[in-house]
C-alpha cells in the first residue's frame, strides 16, 4: 500500500508534537515547520473531482494536486485577508491566454511536467476537458454552466497550444475554466489504466493523483488521513513553502478544538461557530472569517403544495422567523444577516443582499388570517443532519417561533446521505438549506435557484414567468455587456424573489478558518477550501 511506503520514507522526518505528549518523540523538529497538520471533520472519498460522487473534501485534493489552465488573482477582501478576484485571471498551466470573440487560445508553459515527469501537452488538456464534459454527473454539469458541453469545443492547435471554442456568448465561460473541474490530467498515464467499462480511467484517478499540481497524494486512508507532499517540479506558480501536508480526520468537534488550542494541529476550518468566536480571544490562534461568496442559508417552502402555495403564508413565515435569535444563539454573530434591511433600502445590483422582513409576529398573524389560516396548520420542517450543528438549532428556534402564529412544525432530521434525495423529490414542505455558487454572479445563483426550468436547487419548485424573463434577460445582457438592462434585470430578479418569497434568506454564512499564529498565507477561494500552495509556517 502506498501509505506504508510513504510512512517508511517519512520515518526520518518524523517529529514530535512536543507540547502535549510527554516526550514521546525525539526526532528532529525542523521538518515540523515544513509540515502542515490539518484537522477536519471529514475527508475526501475520491481524489478526482471527475469521479462519481466525489465529496467536497475531495475538491480540496483536486485543487491542490491538479493545475488548471488559468486561475484567479488575489485581492484584499473586506476583512483584510486575501480574497480571490472574480474578475482577474492569472495563468497557471497556460503561459498566455488569447481571448477571441468566440474562442480562447491557450499556450502551455514550456517546462510544465506531470508529477511522473512526462511533459504536459495540448493533447492532455483536450483529453482532460473532453473528460470533464463527457463523464456525466457533477463535472459535466458544472462545465455546462459555462456553456462548455461538447468535446468538439476543445481543439488541439499544436503540441503546446489549445483552443477553446465558445458555443455561444456567455460571460461565465472563462470563469468556468478557472473552477476546480477543468483540471489537467496526465492522459497517457490514466489511459493506461482505462478499461472498456471505464474509458476515462476514473477508477485509477479515484485513488491516485495524476496531475501536474503543486502537491501529490502520497498516502490516503479514507476516513483517517491524507498525506500530500510537495511536487518540487511545479511550474504553476511560486514553489510552496510547505513540504508536506498531513490532513487528519478528527470527527469530534471538541477534539479538533482541543488540538488547536493545545497547538497540536496547525489549522482547522470546520468548527462550530461558537468555537470560532471563543477562539478569537485565544492569543495563540489566528481566526479568519469570510462570508461565503454567492451563498445563502435559507428557509425554503414548497410552493407547489398548500399551504405554502399561498404567497401570504410565505410572507407570514418570513415575518415570523426569529432572525436575530438565530444570529445570536446559533451563529454567534459569525454570519452576515440577510434580513431586516431598512425600509428605504434600495435594491442593489448585487447578490446576496438582505431582504426587508424582520421578526414581527403581529404582522405575521395578520397575514395568516388574510391567507385564510387564522388558526394556522401543521407541517414538517426538515434539515440535513450532516450540518446539524447549525441546522438543528435553527429549526428548533423556527419551530418555536412559528408556533406563535399557529404553525405547528415537527422536526424531521434527514441523514446527510439522503438529503439530496429528499430535495430531489421536491416534496419537503419546509426546510432549511444552504446554496452557494462557485461563480460569483447573481444570475448564476438565480438560474439554479429560481428559474422555471426547475433545477435541483430550485428546491421550492418555484416557477414564475416574470422571474424567468428577468433571469434570461440578465444572462443575455451579461453576455452582450449591456450593463443597463443587466442592472435592471438583476434588480427585478431580487425584487420578485423577495415579493414572492418562495425561500427566505436567513444569513450569508462565513467560512471560518482557525490556525496557529505561526501559520500564514491563508487565502479565500470561491470553493472555500484550503489552498496549501500559499501557506507557510514561521
Amino acid at each position: 500500500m502506498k501509505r506504508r511506503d510513504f510512512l517508511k520514507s517519512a520515518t526520518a522526518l518524523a517529529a514530535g508534537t512536543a507540547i502535549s505528549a510527554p516526550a514521546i518523540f525525539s526526532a528532529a523538529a525542523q521538518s515540523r515547520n515544513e509540515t502542515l497538520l490539518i484537522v477536519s471533520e471529514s475527508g475526501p472519498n475520491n481524489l478526482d473531482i471527475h469521479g462519481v460522487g466525489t465529496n467536497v473534501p475531495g475538491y480540496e485534493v483536486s485543487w491542490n494536486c491538479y493545475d488548471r489552465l488559468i486561475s484567479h488573482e488575489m485581492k484584499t477582501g473586506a476583512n483584510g485577508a486575501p480574497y480571490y478576484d472574480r474578475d482577474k485571471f492569472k495563468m497557471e498551466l497556460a503561459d498566455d491566454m488569447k481571448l477571441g470573440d468566440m474562442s480562447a487560445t491557450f499556450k502551455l508553459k514550456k517546462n510544465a511536467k506531470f508529477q511522473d515527469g512526462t511533459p504536459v501537452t495540448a493533447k492532455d488538456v483536450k483529453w482532460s476537458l473532453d473528460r470533464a464534459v463527457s463523464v456525466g454527473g457533477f463535472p459535466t454539469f458544472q462545465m455546462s454552466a459555462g456553456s462548455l458541453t461538447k468535446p468538439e469545443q476543445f481543439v488541439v492547435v499544436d503540441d503546446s497550444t489549445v483552443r477553446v471554442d465558445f458555443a455561444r456568448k456567455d460571460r461565465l465561460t472563462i470563469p468556468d475554466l478557472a473552477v476546480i473541474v477543468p483540471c489537467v490530467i496526465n492522459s497517457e498515464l490514466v489511459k493506461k489504466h482505462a478499461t472498456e467499462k471505464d474509458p476515462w480511467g476514473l477508477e485509477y484517478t479515484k485513488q491516485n493523483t495524476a496531475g501536474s499540481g503543486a502537491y501529490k497524494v502520497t498516502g490516503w486512508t479514507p476516513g483517517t488521513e491524507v498525506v500530500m507532499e510537495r511536487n518540487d517540479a511545479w511550474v504553476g506558480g511560486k514553489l510552496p513553502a510547505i513540504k508536506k501536508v498531513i490532513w487528519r480526520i478528527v470527527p469530534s468537534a471538541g477534539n479538533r478544538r482541543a488540538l488547536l488550542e493545545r497547538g497540536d494541529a496547525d489549522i482547522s476550518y470546520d468548527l462550530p461557530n461558537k468555537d470560532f468566536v471563543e477562539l478569537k480571544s485565544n492569543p495563540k490562534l489566528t481566526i479568519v472569517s469570510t462570508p461565503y461568496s454567492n451563498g445563502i442559508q435559507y428557509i425554503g417552502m414548497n410552493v407547489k403544495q398548500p399551504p405554502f402555495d399561498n404567497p401570504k403564508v410565505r410572507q407570514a413565515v418570513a415575518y415570523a422567523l426569529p432572525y436575530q435569535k438565530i444570529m445570536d444563539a446559533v451563529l454567534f454573530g459569525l454570519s452576515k444577516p440577510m434580513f431586516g434591511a431598512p425600509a428605504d433600502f434600495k435594491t442593489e445590483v448585487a447578490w446576496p443582499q438582505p431582504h426587508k422582513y424582520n421578526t414581527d409576529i403581529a404582522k405575521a398573524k395578520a397575514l395568516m388570517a388574510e391567507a385564510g389560516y387564522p388558526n394556522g396548520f401543521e407541517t414538517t420542517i426538515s434539515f440535513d443532519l450532516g450540518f446539524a450543528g447549525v441546522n438543528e438549532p435553527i429549526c428548533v428556534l423556527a419551530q418555536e417561533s412559528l408556533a406563535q402564529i399557529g404553525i405547528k412544525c415537527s422536526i424531521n432530521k434527514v441523514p446527510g446521505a439522503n438529503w439530496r434525495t429528499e430535495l430531489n423529490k421536491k416534496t419537503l414542505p419546509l426546510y432549511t438549506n444552504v446554496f452557494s455558487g462557485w461563480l460569483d454572479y447573481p444570475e448564476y445563483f438565480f438560474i439554479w435557484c429560481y428559474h422555471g426550468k426547475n433545477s435541483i436547487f430550485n428546491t421550492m419548485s418555484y416557477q414564475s414567468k416574470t422571474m424567468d424573463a428577468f433571469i434570461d434577460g440578465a444572462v443575455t445582457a451579461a453576455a452582450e455587456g449591456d450593463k443597463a438592462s443587466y442592472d435592471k434585470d438583476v434588480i427585478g430578479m431580487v425584487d420578485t424573489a423577495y415579493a414572492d418569497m418562495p425561500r427566505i434568506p436567513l444569513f450569508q454564512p462565513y467560512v471560518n478558518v482557525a490556525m496557529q499564529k505561526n501559520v500564514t498565507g491563508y487565502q479565500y477561494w470561491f470553493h472555500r477550501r484550503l489552498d496549501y500552495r500559499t501557506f507557510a509556517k514561521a
Partner: protein
Amino acid sequence: MLATIGKRLLTVIPTLIGVVIVTFLLTRALPGDPAAYFAGPAATKEAIEQVRKNLGLDKPLPEQFVRYVRDLARGDLGNSLSTGRPVTTEIVSRLPASAELTLLGLIVSMAIAVPLGILAAVKQGSWIDHTCRVVATAGVSLPVFFTGLLLVYVFYYILGWSPSPIGRLDAFASAPTQITGFFLIDSLVTGNLEVFRSALAQLILPVVTLAIFSLAPIARMTRASMLAVLASEFVRTARASGLDSRTVIITYAFRNAMLPVVTTLGMVFSFLLGANVLVEKVFAWPGIGSYAVEALLQSDFAPVQGFVLTMAVLYVVLNLVIDILYGVIDPRVRLEG
C-alpha cells in the same frame, strides 16, 4: 475436542447464512438513494439513472442478492461506493486497529474485573464488595462516548498527560512495518521502541474507556460464579482438609469459577465491538467500526455488509476460541466431547 470444534462449525453455517440475508435486506432497506448521492449535487434525473445503472442498483432485489452472494463466494466483498476501494482491502487494513483496541480493552478490563470480582465474592457483603459493585456499575452506566470525551478533556486538554486523540499514532510518527497489523507487536518485533511508546500512549485513553464500560459484566459474572463455587461442596471439602485460603481460592474456587466467565466473554466481546464504534468516533481511531458507521450513514452497502460479515466471522472464531479455552479448563468438555 476436534469433534466439538467441528460440530460448532456446523452450527455456525445457518448463522452465517442468516447474517448474510439480514445484512443484505437491512442495507437495501436503508433510506436514501446512493445513485442520487453519487451523481453529485447538480445531477439531472438522467444522470442519476445513469449512475444507478453503473452501480447495478436498477436490477431487481433477488438478482442483486444472487450477484452479491456469488461475489461473496469468490471472496469479493465489493467496492465501497464512497471510498472506491475494495471492501476487503479496507477491512484488512482497518481490522487490526479495531482488534488491537478491543482486545486490549478486554484484557485490561479482565485484569481489573476478575480480581475485583474475586475479592468481592470472598469478602461478600463487606464494604469492598459494595464498592466493587458500585464502581463497576457506575462504569457501565456511562455512555462510552461520554466517558471518552471526559477522559480526553481531563487527560489531554486540561492535564496534557495524554497525546492528542487523533488515531493510532501521533501525526508525525510512522507506522511500523506491517507484520500483524497490531502496532504494539509490530513495533516491538521491529525493535522500534519510539513507535511502541507512541502507539501505547495513543491506546491508553480509548482502551481505558472500553475497559470502564466492560468492567461491570465481567466483575459481576466473576463474583456470581465465585460465590457459587465458594459455596460448593468441593470447596468445603478442601477447607475441611485444611488447605490454605490461597489454594482454596485460586486452585479450587477460581479455576472453576472461570468457566461461566469464559462463556460470557463472547457476549462481552460483542458488546465491546458495539461500544467500539462510538469510541473510534471519539478518538478518531481508524478502525472498522468508524468505517462502518460512516458507510451506514451514507447508505454505502458494501462496507456495511463487509463489516457485519467480518464481525460475524470474528464472533464465530472468538466463540470457537472460547470453546477451546473452555475445554482447556474443563476436562469434562475435553474428554467427553
